[in-house]
């Protein structure tokens, strides 16, 4: 089940960005995900403002050398993963 392209992903309660040893991390209960490159670009845009479509469009532009379809698939997969871990909500 893919995220609705018009929803505006945001970090779930209890989840926030932090920094550790000079690297950005996504902090959540009993877990921390190190973010860099694409994962960082995605998560920092999960601000309740960017729609999923806008987020994808921005990253396709950022990674202009990559196949746009693959960028879209990778992003949707990653958003779904974070949702399943309850780090992200998709309010419409």
């Amino acid at each position, binding site marked *: *089940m893919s995220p609705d392209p018009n929803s505006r992903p945001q970090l*779930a*309660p*209890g*989840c*926030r960005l*932090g*920094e*550790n*040893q000079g690297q950005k*991390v996504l*902090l*959540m*209960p*009993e877990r*921390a995900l190190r973010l860099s490159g694409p994962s960082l670009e995605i998560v920092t845009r999960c601000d309740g403002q960017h729609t999923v479509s806008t987020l994808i469009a921005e990253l396709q532009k950022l990674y202009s050398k990559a196949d746009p379809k693959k960028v879209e698939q990778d992003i949707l997969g990653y958003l779904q993963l974070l*949702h*399943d*871990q*309850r780090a992200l909500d998709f309010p419409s």
Partner: protein
Amino acid sequence: MTDAALSNPLALIAELTHRCPLHCVYCSNPQELSARQDELPTESWIHVLQQAAALGVMQVDLTGGEPLARPDLPALIRTARAANLYVNLITSGLPLDEKRLDELIAAGLDHFQLSFQGALEDTASEISGGKSHAQKLRVLEWLRSRRVGVTLNFVIHRRNLDQLEEMLVIAESSSASRVEFAHVQYYGWALANRELLLPSREQLTHSLDFFKNAQERLRGKIRIEYVVPDYYAKFPKPCMGGWARKVILITPSGEALPCHAATVIPGLQFENVEEKSLAEIWQKSEAFQKFRGEDWMQEPCKSCDRRSVDFGGCRCQALVLAGNAAATDPVCSLSPQRAKVDAIISAIRETSPVNSSSGSVVQPAWLYRPNPA
């Protein structure tokens, strides 16, 4: 013996007090509880939190006993957040009212982990030795309208394994985004009550099926995690992510331990945060060094392919079950002492509440955890 490059600790477990309004029969606190007068003052905990952050720690668990027994919690939460730590509160939910809850959240609490001793009030009262279930349900209600991470922690054992469905109902009607079904591990008070707590293999298997189904059904809504009693495992758990590799625990009186149970191991010298810096303790404490690396390992661990995966299991459990903290954790199928664990399992008698001739229920002979002086 240190690793060639000692990595930083990732988590700090701050056992703020051993005082607690409950008397749970499975409590993982040591059977020798810390007295109130020996508790570290606020300033000392502030210093510990700041040092932990400087060492690279990312998360702090404010726990106990019952951390809510400490009036300085908001100050500790504010300090932890100012030091860029992620703050978890591991609590029974008492004593708490809405005003105090709002205070803790305003201070910057990230995550509220609420324990449950059962799905039914009678079971909860029996297991915790007090009335607390109704209060926990009230706390759940308050949490619905507050923005904070919420985990429900159901502690599972033979006496409440038949309440899993009801536990999930409680979880689903709350705002919790995470549920942990934690089978009791046998340390501290749980060890003393093991005969009454350890489930049969059949009960365990049934619970695993339940957890897996629940995980699937609630995927995307609630993150369900579970811990199993490792007596039934083929290989031991990588306890604490390895001895003194990722976690520092500070006891109420300021002793630095690699884990909850380490004081059962004879001959270990523990340092105190009032006397040494956290960095020095992490790098050089005799207790922390004792089981780092591989030099201390005995066979079969010493030449086992899994030694970097599970580190030979749990040192405290090896001490408790095999009499030797350097031995292979006897729950391991490769341990020459596995038969001891098999014997414990064989001795389980599936007891249920016995009805006396008058029709009243006879309670098992629990050893209840007291409140320290």
